[in-house]
């Protein structure tokens, strides 16, 4: 009797495991937004990414394949282990089809390890690392919005070409900062510049004066901040305070609109940066951003706009494919070009990289700002095919 029970149990468990290992298409689309709801990056892709995804679902009509589209959300707390557990729960038990949001490359790396195996599509809209379409690529990843290569090809290349040849890096001491510094160094050398020094500051450093002093004595033309969020703002403040900005240029390599708004215009004015989106670019961006601002209370960051664009493109693909089966949906996503207020000259490549026109912008001085949201002047549009890393053969998933 006991053995029978045991066998029954084993069979049941085995059965459960077998069905849960790979997501079964059930004809109902359920989207999960996993983002930083209350931490350092909450303004970049947190509740705002939920709002943007919600807007995309509403604009799409609220239902697909004859069923209403469901939205679930969770806080990654910027912890890879927490995010990984949530992702597993979502795809194995809660029938979530696709996971969006995904800010912080460490979190995204942990989540994609789960979803790549379970064959669930991830719509990465907040992370910077280029590894998701190179060494950690997968047929189930769609990396939207930006990456470190696009940042370097925008800001770094334009500055080197304008004659700023000597560079010093203040780098956030974790995977994202290292990747950004490496890629940027490559771009500097390709264009005839050199790196005269670098210093690695731990994440969450409050006082950058020591690093600013080291940068000052390096004799560089440009001090590049390969960090993000409050680190960038604090580093820039220290640079201005210690008089570094009088003799050298400071380049913020990753700046989101909320960060730019947090900077003192007197010190940040004239700083160039690369972004995937700016709300005040044209009629289409303004119209969407106004709707977003009414619901969210702040202008959209590029990650917010990217979350909308990616969700809409995903839903269109589900509709066109007539199924939520991930391989068919991804094939459809790559076959049609995303086109909305965010995606300009865009294409989701076979390696999962969504390439689109990027913007090189300059922070406006206080005198030129009409209101608190009027922060950038667009200098140049960087064409999609120049901005991003070329596709590598191992990641070509076109079948």
């Amino acid at each position: 009797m006991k053995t029978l029970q045991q066998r029954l149990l084993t069979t049941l468990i085995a059965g459960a495991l077998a069905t849960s290992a790979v997501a079964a298409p059930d004809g109902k689309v359920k989207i999960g937004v996993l983002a930083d709801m209350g931490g350092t990056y909450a303004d970049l892709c947190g509740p705002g990414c939920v709002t943007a995804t919600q807007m995309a679902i509403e604009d799409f009509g609220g239902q697909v394949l004859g069923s209403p589209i469901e939205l679930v959300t969770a806080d990654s707390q910027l912890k890879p282990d927490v995010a990984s557990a949530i992702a597993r729960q979502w795809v194995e038990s809660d029938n979530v089809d696709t996971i969006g949001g995904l800010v912080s490359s460490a979190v995204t790396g942990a989540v994609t390890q789960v979803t790549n195996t379970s064959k669930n599509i991830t719509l990465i809209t907040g992370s910077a690392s280029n590894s998701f379409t190179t060494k950690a690529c997968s047929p189930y990843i769609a990396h939207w919005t930006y990456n470190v290569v696009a940042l370097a090809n925008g800001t770094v290349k334009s500055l080197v070409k304008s004659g700023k040849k000597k560079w010093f890096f203040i780098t956030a001491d974790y995977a994202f900062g290292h990747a950004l510094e490496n890629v940027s160094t490559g771009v500097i050398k390709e264009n005839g510049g050199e790196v005269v020094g670098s210093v690695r500051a731990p994440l969450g450093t409050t006082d950058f004066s020591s690093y600013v002093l080291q940068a000052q004595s390096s004799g560089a033309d440009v001090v590049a901040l390969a960090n993000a969020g409050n680190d960038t703002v604090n580093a820039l403040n220290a640079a201005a305070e210690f008089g570094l900005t009088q003799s050298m240029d400071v380049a913020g390599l990753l700046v989101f609109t909320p960060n730019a708004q947090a900077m003192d215009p007197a010190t940040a004015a004239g700083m160039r940066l690369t972004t995937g989106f700016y709300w005040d670019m044209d009629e289409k961006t303004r119209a969407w951003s106004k709707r977003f601002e009414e619901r969210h209370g702040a202008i959209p960051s590029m990650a917010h706009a990217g979350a909308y664009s990616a969700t809409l493109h995903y839903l269109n693909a589900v509709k066109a494919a007539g199924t939520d089966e991930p391989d068919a949906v991804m094939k459809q996503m790559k076959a049609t070009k995303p086109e909305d207020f965010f995606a300009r000259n865009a294409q989701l490549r076979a390696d999962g990289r969504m390439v689109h026109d990027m913007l090189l912008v300059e922070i406006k001085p206080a005198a030129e700002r009409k209101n608190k949201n009027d922060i950038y002047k667009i200098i140049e549009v960087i064409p999609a095919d120049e901005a991003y890393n070329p596709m590598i053969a191992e990641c070509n998933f076109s079948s």
Partner: protein
Amino acid sequence: MASLFDINLFALFGQLLIGLINGSFYALLSLGLAIIFGLLKIINFAQGAMYMLGAFAALLGMQYLGINYWFALILVPLAVGLVGILMERFLIRRIANEDHLYSLLLTFGLALMLQGIFTHLFGSSGLSYPIPDALKGGTKLPFMYLPNYRAWIILVSVVVCIGTWWMIEKTKLGAYLRAGTENPQLLQAFGINVPLIVTLTFGFGVALAGLAGVMAAPVYSVSPDMGSNILIVVFAIVVIGGMGSIGGAILTGLGMGVIEGLTKYFYPEASTTVIFLVMVIVLLFKPAGLFGKEA
């Protein structure tokens, strides 16, 4: 080769001075905690949140009430101190006779709530507060450019630290306070209102955090998590300095600033850990801290 050596020596002087500036800021921050933690034996995990509150109060006061930096320097510590007094009177007082861990849990919860509320209201990206006009600019020293505001931080910190130390160690009020923490019942028998002294001391300690917040606002990004980032370091400084030693906290604050500054120059990757390394070593050899008395 000689000139190269000169440059390095100059760079080192710069780093030492920066270490002293940061150290005086640490001293200011750890002073309040040393009073609350060292004298009252209350583990106040909300001290970082009070520092954050001070910075936000200065910013909001300027935006909505037109209070400038100089008035904020006086008004904000009073307001934050009042928050501390209410906190002590209505919350911490109720668990005064319980294990110390209860005050830790209570104040940690309060800190999380405050941080959550501020993140909800103002976002996580931080806001900027301008340096007051009178303190803009700086002085060119032979080895570095010293911003006036940083010199001002040293000045305020030295005045406040010495003043507080003198008040607690040399005045009658300070003597009551020290006696009250040693033996409250006995002091009460002499007709001194000990609970009132405790409340006011707690309020004063918290007010110091508010002052540090105002001092920090023009140089660091004003953000909801600015307090939680710095709190643990400041706790470590108080532990290294020795429980109950005001002078110990001040000197350790200065010393740790210099050590951290040198680490940032020679091996920046370890700059956030070096203070804890010192703490481990000190606790191994002197469990009561550098200036603490053995219990």
